């Protein structure tokens, strides 16, 4: 999209009391706006500030507080204010909205970088922190610094962890050494031994412990049998003895009662039962006699009681018989159980291949009757087995602990190894980040400083002040120091040593260098009266530098009230190929800002020659004026001998003869007339000799017609005057180009060239 500006229209902003249109010439990227003070230059700059940055910077820092109410022209409202920038492709309009400036369409809003006279020293004289703020958009890498800080923190943590891991591995190895020593230092290396041991299966101990425990339990089961059997045998003996006694007592009782006492008791008890059911029988139920039936029941009971002792003896005997039987059974059960457990012990003993430290009974379990002496003989074995079991328990615990220690040691060693790999990589990453960051900042600042120095050198060549340095203060956050070389001292603060004029130039160079870093092709650069304090010898070079740099920007507008610039431009003494010159008229409350149409003198001469009827006096006057300028140029260029004068006023009569015959004959100009098919320039060579000869011949016309009132002019033909004017016009057409540029560049080493090579003036040096 072609963003070249066509027109800037300002309506009621500040000094534009009437709508003002600033037209841009096609193909020219630099506009110089000349105007005396109070012509509206700053209003034009404000208009660019308004549309590009949404502010009116010229009112700031003047103690006005909020300046918005002063933006409209006197008597106008904010709603009346508008700035429109029309480009080749689009147009963009800015108005005062709420709360800010409204730009529509926003995508066509121009980027504007504006430097005002009052701000020119801002960057140079600012505090380091403020200077950094201005430059931070190019060097601010705070995001990287924050990420870098995280990496640094990680390294610190990893280093701590590394120390901990080392200490742990050391502790683990010491513990393994202790295990190794307690195991009798088998093998040559504690760790190798520990790793080998850790391979062992600790279940093997469990199996042995279980077997020993089985042996112990089965042996323990036998321990109580001798005592139990003995008790059972004693109980049986007591029961048997009791039975003998009971039998004896029964026999004795029977003898005492009758031989058939037993049968008698049975008959009597039957009778008692009968008589209880028939208490008053009429006859004896046994003999049927009616005699003595009275009291029969009582007499039967008396007789039964007589047989009670016998009955008790009989019951006692039966009870004793039962006790003997029971004791006998219990004894047999005990013996059977003892035999069974003895068999189990033997079975347990036979089931395992016992280690040597597990002592076994020398003989198998004997018959149950011999159990007690067998047990007595081997009474120490359970303790031995317990020891063997405990020993295995200890070994197992040792192995488990050793395994754990070995694993911990291996884990920590592995972790330490990982950290040993990780830590150098983290440190290298940080090193790279820090190096790249410093390099990036140094390169960026160096680039800016070099650019500042380059621009500065263009204005102050050979003064040795071009070595500008910009450096971030390593001890302070966001602080930028500026330095320059001065009398062999490098890094000297320029504010301390430079003149005001040099500082102004430096400030301008810093501004230009920064503006050129950020999308210059999209940026409209506005320099508001920045030449004011630059001293005369440097102004031309500063202007040349601005010409040279302006082309990289989308457009460059320079305002100035530096009067010589106006005339130097008018006379083409400055490169003006890309320059549009605009002169502002005096501002008035009725007309506001307005443009003066300035016509260059050469064009004015052409216009006079074209007038009908021509005015010989005006033509000769203007042509003489121009010829003096041309001769002044040539005599200075070729260092011609000219009589010196106090007031430096040289006339045609002084200058024309000083161009010697030799020089006059060798003066020729190659005039660019086009390009060939290869794009190479084609020149037409024109000798200046006949023109200068003719001018020598008719130069008196200037004095007669154009300088003073002389009666002699009445006698001359107007054609003489017109011829003089035409010859001057021809000379200027050959010597300068359509933009009024003079051949001042000797870089070719062969000729003097205009900007763009439109003219090549030969020779380079005056012939000897």
């Amino acid at each position: 999209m072609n963003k070249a500006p066509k027109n800037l229209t300002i309506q009621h902003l500040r000094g534009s009391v009437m709508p003002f249109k600033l037209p841009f010439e096609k193909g020219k990227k630099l506009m110089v706006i000349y105007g005396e003070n109070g012509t509206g230059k700053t209003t034009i700059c404000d208009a660019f500030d308004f549309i590009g940055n949404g502010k009116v910077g010229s009112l700031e820092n003047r103690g006005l507080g909020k300046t918005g109410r002063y933006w409209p022209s006197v008597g106008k409202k904010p709603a009346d204010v508008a700035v429109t920038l029309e480009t080749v492709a689009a147009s963009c309009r800015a108005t005062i909205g709420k709360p800010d400036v409204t730009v529509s369409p926003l995508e066509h809003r121009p980027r504007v970088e504006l430097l005002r006279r009052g701000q020119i020293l801002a960057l140079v004289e600012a505090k380091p922190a403020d200077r950094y703020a201005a430059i931070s958009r190019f060097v601010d890498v705070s995001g990287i610094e924050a990420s870098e800080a995280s990496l640094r923190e990680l390294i610190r943590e990893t280093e701590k962890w590394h120390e901990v891991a080392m200490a742990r591995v050391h502790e683990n190895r010491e513990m393994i050494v202790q295990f190794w020593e307690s195991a009798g230092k088998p093998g040559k290396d504690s760790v190798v031994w520990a790793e080998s041991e850790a391979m062992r299966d600790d279940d093997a101990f469990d199996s042995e412990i279980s077997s020993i425990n089985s042996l112990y339990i089965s042996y323990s089961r036998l321990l109580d049998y001798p005592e139990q059997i003995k008790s059972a045998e004693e109980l049986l003996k007591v029961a048997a003895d009791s039975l003998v006694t009971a039998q004896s007592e029964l026999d004795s009782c029977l003898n005492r009662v009758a031989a058939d006492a037993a049968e008698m008791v049975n008959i009597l008890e039957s009778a008692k039962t009968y008589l209880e059911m028939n208490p008053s029988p009429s006859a004896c139920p046994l003999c049927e006699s009616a005699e003595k039936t009275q009291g029969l029941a009582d007499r039967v009971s008396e007789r039964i009681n007589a047989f009670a002792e016998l009955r008790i003896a009989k019951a006692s005997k039966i009870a004793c018989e039962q006790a003997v039987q029971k004791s006998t059974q219990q004894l047999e059960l005990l013996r059977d159980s003892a035999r069974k457990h003895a068999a189990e012990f033997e079975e347990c003993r036979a089931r395992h291949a016992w280690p040597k430290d597990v002592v076994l009974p020398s003989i198998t379990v004997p018959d149950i009757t011999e159990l007690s002496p067998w047990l007595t003989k081997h009474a120490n074995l359970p303790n031995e087995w317990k020891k063997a079991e405990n020993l295995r328990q200890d070994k197992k615990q040792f192995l488990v602990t050793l395994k754990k220690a070995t694993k911990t040691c291996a884990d920590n060693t592995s972790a330490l190894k990982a950290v040993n790999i990780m830590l150098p990589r983290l440190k290298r990453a940080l090193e790279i980040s820090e190096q790249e960051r410093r390099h990036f900042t140094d390169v960026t600042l160096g680039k800016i400083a070099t650019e500042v120095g380059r621009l500065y050198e263009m204005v102050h060549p050979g003064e040795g002040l071009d070595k500008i340095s910009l450096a971030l203060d390593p001890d302070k956050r966001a602080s930028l120091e500026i330095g320059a070389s001065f009398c062999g001292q490098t890094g000297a603060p320029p504010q301390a040593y430079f003149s005001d004029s040099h500082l102004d130039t430096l400030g301008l160079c810093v501004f230009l260098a920064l503006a050129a870093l950020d999308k210059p092709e999209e940026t409209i650069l506005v320099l508001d009266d920045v030449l004011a304090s630059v001293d005369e010898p440097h102004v031309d070079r500063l202007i040349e530098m601005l010409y040279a740099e302006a082309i990289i920007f989308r457009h460059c507008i320079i305002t100035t009230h530096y009067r010589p610039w106006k005339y130097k431009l008018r006379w083409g003494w400055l490169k003006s190929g890309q320059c549009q010159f605009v002169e502002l008229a005096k501002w008035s409350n009725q007309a506001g800002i307005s443009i003066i149409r300035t016509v260059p003198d050469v064009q004015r001469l052409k216009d006079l020659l074209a007038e009908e009827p021509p005015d010989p006096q005006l033509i000769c006057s203007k042509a003489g004026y121009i010829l003096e300028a041309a001769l002044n140029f040539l005599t200075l260029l070729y260092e011609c001998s000219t009589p010196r004068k106090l007031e430096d006023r040289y006339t045609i009569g002084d200058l024309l003869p000083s161009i010697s015959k030799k020089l006059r004959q060798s003066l020729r100009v190659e005039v660019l007339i086009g390009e060939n098919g290869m794009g190479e320039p084609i020149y037409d060579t024109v000798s200046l000799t006949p023109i200068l000869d003719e001018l020598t011949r008719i130069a008196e016309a200037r004095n007669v017609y154009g300088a003073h009132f002389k009666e002699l002019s009445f006698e001359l033909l107007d054609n003489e005057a017109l011829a003089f004017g035409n010859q001057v016009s021809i000379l200027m057409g050959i010597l300068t180009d359509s933009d009024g540029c003079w051949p001042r560049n000797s870089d070719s080493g062969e000729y003097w060239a205009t900007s763009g090579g439109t003219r090549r003036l030969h020779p380079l040096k005056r012939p000897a």
Partner: protein
Amino acid sequence: MISPSEELSKKILEKLVAEVLITADDAKKMSSRMAAGKLRADDWKLAIEKGSPGGAKT
């Protein structure tokens, strides 16, 4: 205009990849977060671990 941090992050990550400290994939993922200052210690740790030839773990 690309910010200085964005420009620098690309340069740093290119170097880290060139020295096989991180993978190219991780470099792509890290770029914007690094420029924004949002890369944390764990992000660095993971990226450097993944970049290790043996994938060392701590």
